[in-house]
């Protein structure tokens, strides 16, 4: 992974000093609440319901063991001994003290980490596929370009105060795993017909109140121009995006208002001036950064490993875990492993300090001391030998990190919701826990198969509920917490936005509502059909009919 040189280090050190001074001035009353807000937000510090919340950047989801150990220590020292991995591959601390934040940042800087631009109206952490560099279906490893874009976007002076936050995702696979169509800019890397690295650029995607999938603004862009083309897009947005209404301030609203063709014309007119400007990326720079992402020194292994096959055959619990949590690797004899942060009964994405230390140790022993955070809020060991999988499983299981539910109904994506977030209409974590309790039978979960359930506590959609096969949205009904359910959303190349099935439900009805949706699916599915396929084939009607059926229904509200 990328290692800082003295220039990178100096920038984060100077940031710590700058933020320390800003915090001091705020505490001394020299900065008003309004003036301090954008400053702390650009450093990932929210003031939430009970405490501030600090979002720490994990650029494109890559972490070293050393960094994760440090995060665990910070969570122990400054927080309540746990952290929350978010859908944007970052780590969020729920209980730090505002006056401690400069010290936390100083500690992060010692392991080449920071909280720069993890929130606020600026270019945010750039996200990508958690299997980057090792996926068999990968065309281009997007991480070198992601790092180049990280550096370019860090304190970009022209885009320091945009109308609204700006999220960029990059991906280099045939099967998109980075949800690029749900980002302000999505960059899809591919090899063009002349064998060169090229980019398909998407713009104007976003979830939130007005979910919109991105449109293609350019089918083919030479990689050298990635930064200047983004500058053209963001300049048009910076000048013309709405600033009078935060709900209409995202780039998606501007793209919609102008239409993609007019927006594209304006961007291309701007780019005519920017093309080949000094920020054009050089071969040398791509090569320099690329060196940090070269293949691990893999052993030459056989594609099969007898001890592993024997363990799978004799140990059903291990076999179930392998089925759900172990993924293909481009190198023979290696696999990627997802460590589930979704054990039934605790908040999705949470990890205790002890668990973080365990994962860091596992990475050290079995996966070249590196790991990744997935946007599904789990942790990934990317390079594990087949022969080590049993040992990894045993240690992970002993630490509550081996729930074999990856991609299953209880692998829920869930925002912090009303337990922590002051914008929430409703709690989301208790709903996740209740659903996990309702479906606490692994055989049954495996029988239901691949499904994604996403929960957001309000229309800001931090839990990506629009693209969940089942989406749950907290709504406010006469000051009571209710939940609206949608089905048929999907992320990936064939992304879609879910359709609401009808009136919302009270919290205690939710497990049975989900049960009824699953019952319809089990009854109607053809062989090999996943939940989403059945919904797409049949539409919402049969699901709706069963959920709201009069005789069984105490539910409608």
């Amino acid at each position: 992974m990328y290692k800082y040189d003295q220039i990178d280090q100096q920038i984060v050190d100077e940031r710590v000093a700058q933020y320390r001074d800003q915090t001091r001035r705020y505490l001394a009353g020299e900065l008003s609440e309004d003036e301090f807000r954008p400053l702390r937000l650009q450093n990932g510090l929210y003031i939430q319901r009970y405490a501030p919340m600090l979002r720490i950047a994990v650029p494109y989801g890559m972490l070293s063991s050393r960094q994760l150990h440090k995060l665990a220590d910070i969570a122990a020292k400054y927080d309540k001994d746990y952290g929350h991995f978010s859908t944007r591959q970052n780590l969020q601390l729920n209980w730090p003290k505002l006056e401690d934040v400069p010290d936390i940042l100083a500690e992060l800087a010692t392991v080449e980490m920071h909280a720069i631009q993890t929130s606020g109206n600026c270019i945010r952490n750039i996200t990508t596929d958690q299997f980057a560099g090792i996926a068999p279906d990968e065309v281009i490893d997007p991480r070198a370009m992601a790092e180049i874009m990280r550096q370019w976007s860090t304190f970009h002076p022209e885009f320091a105060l945009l109308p609204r936050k700006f999220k960029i995702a990059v991906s280099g696979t045939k099967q998109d795993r980075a949800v690029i169509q749900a980002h302000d800019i999505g960059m899809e890397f591919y090899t063009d017909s002349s064998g060169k690295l090229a980019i398909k650029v998407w713009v104007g995607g976003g979830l939130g109140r007005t979910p919109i999938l991105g449109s293609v603004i350019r089918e083919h862009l030479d990689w050298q121009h990635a930064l200047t083309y983004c500058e053209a897009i963001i300049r048009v947005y910076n000048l013309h995006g709405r600033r009078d209404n935060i709900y209409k301030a995202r780039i998606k609203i501007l793209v919609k208002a102008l239409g993609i063709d007019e927006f594209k014309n304006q961007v291309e007119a701007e780019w005519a001036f920017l093309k080949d400007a000094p920020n054009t990326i050089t071969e040398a720079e791509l090569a320099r950064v690329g060196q940090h992402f070269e293949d691990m020194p893999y052993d030459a292994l056989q594609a099969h490993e007898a001890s592993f096959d024997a363990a799978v055959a004799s140990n059903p619990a291990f076999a179930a875990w392998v089925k759900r949590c172990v993924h293909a690797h481009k190198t023979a004899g290696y696999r990627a492993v997802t460590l589930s942060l979704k054990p039934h009964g605790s908040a999705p994405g949470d990890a205790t300090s002890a668990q973080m230390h365990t994962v860091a140790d596992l990475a050290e022993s079995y996966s070249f001391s590196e790991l990744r955070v997935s946007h599904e809020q789990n942790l990934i060991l990317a390079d594990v030998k087949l022969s080590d999988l049993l040992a990894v499983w045993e240690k992970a299981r002993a630490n509550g990190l081996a729930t074999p539910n990856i991609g299953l109904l209880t692998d829920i994506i869930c925002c912090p919701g009303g337990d922590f977030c002051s914008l929430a209409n409703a709690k989301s974590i208790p709903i996740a826990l209740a659903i996990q309790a309702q479906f606490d039978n692994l055989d049954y979960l495996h029988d239901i198969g691949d499904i994604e359930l996403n929960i957001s506590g309000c229309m800001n959609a931090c839990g990506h509920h629009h693209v969940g096969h089942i989406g749950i949205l907290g709504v406010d009904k006469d000051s009571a917490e209710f939940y609206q359910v949608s089905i048929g959303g999907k992320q990936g190349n064939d992304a879609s936005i879910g359709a609401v099935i009808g009136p919302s439900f009270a919290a205690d009805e939710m497990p049975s509502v989900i049960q009824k949706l699953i019952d319809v699916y089990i009854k109607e599915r053809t062989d090999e059909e996943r939940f989403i396929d059945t919904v797409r084939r049949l539409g919402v009607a049969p699901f709706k009919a069963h959920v709201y059926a009069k005789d069984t229904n105490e539910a409608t509200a």
Partner: protein
Amino acid sequence: MSNLIKLNGETASIVENEWTCVNLPASQAEQRVQAGKVVLFKLTGEKSVTDEQIATAVIPATGKVIVPLSVFIARKNSLESRINAGEIGVWLDTHEVLEQLIEHQADLNVLLIIAVHVERFADGRIFSLGTLLRSRYGFKNELRAFGDVLKDQLFFLKRSGFTSFLIRADRSAEDALASLHDFSQPYQGAVDEPQPIFKRYHRTA
């Protein structure tokens, strides 16, 4: 004491303000200058300043003055000799359209100063305006930020091509000075240093 910071190359100092700023008289008409309405202005040609405001704006008869863009455009003929004498500068708001200035004043460098007024410090359009004035339209003279100008935006303003900063009256310019150097080696090319770090340094992996 003056609250004006002026850059001279890399050195910044607090200097007296020799320019007088002309403001538009308050308007009765509803002001549609809200951020984000630029698209509308552009499409409809709707004006954000009334003819009456332009006509009644009081321009001091002597001395160096900075006039609003709309006044500059409408009353340019009567200001001709003073413009040539280097006594007239122009200021614009962040929602105004630069192309209008260019249309009426092809050679910007006749103006010794252009100023951009930022009503709320969080309005980052000012950075794009500065960048465009410098890199697209070749403006070389003093470029000033005034209005809600605070210490924490100075570094970005400087990188976007601004060379003078009228710090908000209730804040100390002295305090703000240091922020011009918050970061010593920026990553990306911008107005003040067009080359990105990877073209300025030989970075080894």
